[in-house]
């Protein structure tokens, strides 16, 4: 045989983790692609240029792959957010850093919307718990830093972080702008839809969450 079937197989730990990241990157491009694209393992395999069975060496099924991608997206968000925190920053500056960190890569929010009713019901309980523990750990680290820079009482960092993630996820749901042709709508309806714009809605609620947690003006 001129080409061994497994010539592409990752053999070392290093190769394996590189291959795993490569698979997650391909999956992420699919998730962020057109809304109507059905996410399939075969499409991921095609993007990476390997067979479906190679993907299954790393992830037991589609949902395990999505769960891993979800966890990675969350960690990246926490990392970006932590990097943008500066001591003494205003509540408003923090909220802007928060939404920028979240929207620069929407994978986290896209997958969060599919989490409970599809992904988590099709993965092993152990995988789900492990993903949640890792996300919680990343969140705690971020929350501690938030308590420091925003001068909040212990425990408030995680509360604020959770509240803001929930607030943002809910705001994204109700923003119809990505899905409708705004130019084709009558002005008054288009304006009505614009009032649900994610960033604006998020910031208006986040202001009160931060003020409630810090007891200081939003800035």
């Amino acid at each position, binding site marked *: 045989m001129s080409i061994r079937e497994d010539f592409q197989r990752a053999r070392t730990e290093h190769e394996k983790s590189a291959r795993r990241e490569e698979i997650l990157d391909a999956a992420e491009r699919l998730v962020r692609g057109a*809304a109507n694209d059905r996410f399939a393992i075969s499409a991921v395999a095609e993007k990476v240029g390997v067979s479906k069975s190679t993907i299954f060496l790393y992830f037991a099924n589609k949902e395990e792959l999505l769960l891993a991608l979800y966890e990675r997206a969350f960690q990246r968000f926490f990392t970006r957010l932590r990097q943008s925190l500066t001591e003494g920053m205003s509540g408003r500056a923090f909220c802007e850093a928060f939404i920028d960190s979240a929207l620069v890569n929407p994978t986290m929010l896209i997958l*969060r*919307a599919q*989490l*409970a*009713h*599809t992904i*988590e*019901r099709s993965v092993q*309980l152990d995988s*789900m*718990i492990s993903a*949640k*523990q890792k996300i*919680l750990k990343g969140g705690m680290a971020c929350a501690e830093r938030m308590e420091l820079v925003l001068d909040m009482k212990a425990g408030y960092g995680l*509360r*604020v972080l*959770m*509240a803001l*993630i*929930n*607030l*943002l*996820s*809910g*705001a994204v*749901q*109700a*923003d*119809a702008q*990505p*899905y*409708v*042709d705004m130019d*084709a*709508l*009558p002005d008054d*309806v288009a304006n*009505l*839809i614009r009032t649900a714009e994610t960033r604006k*809605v*998020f910031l*208006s*609620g986040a*202001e*009160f*969450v*931060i*003020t*409630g*947690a810090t*007891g200081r003006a939003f800035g």
Partner: protein
Amino acid sequence: MGYNLKEGMVIREDFLRARSEPERAARRAEILDAAEKVLRESPDDRFSISDVANRIGVSKSTIFLYFRNKEELLAAMYTQVGEAFFQRLRSRLRRGMTDMEFCEAFIDSSAECPSLVTMRAMISNTISGSLSQSFVAPTFEAIYRTRTAAVAEAEDALGLEPGQGRVLIKAFMNLMCGAAQVSVLRYIHADNIKPDMMEAMRAADARSSFFSGAELLMKGIRA
């Protein structure tokens, strides 16, 4: 049963057809109720027009007399459940109620309209993307109208500044729907989970997660 055997037909196709306006309104309501039940029983929040038709014992084409496609049906369901939710919230508002009582009124009203959270998660991408523009506008307007009434009454009940009620209700809705996304307790068996992990999951339960954020938000409004 009113089958017309004289004309040689065992069952007329249209024997169930609603003919008067009240009959049509009743049939429309019946379709919406059936659709909501089908949605709630669906394990993956999906349903088809044929499921709805089977549930009330009519043909798919009868459903299409009332809703041109599944998206129109979904939009009508969303409008209905949104109105029901705000109706229930309004009925719980009392002038001088505490902030905590308001938070409870909000979450209790939503618990009585469980399709609200499900429908809201579907509305923007599934519905808006495939609806005719002539259907998008009335859907958004109907929801906006019911919300506006609730906002004014909430401002009055809680003694808020004008404009705060709108931010409050929007934020509460977003908090609640965001919290519901990661609420997994209804999908898992507590027996399989270690107690410390179970505690973490309870903290992420939609209700407690909502309250945690809602309390900070109310404090912020009062600040």
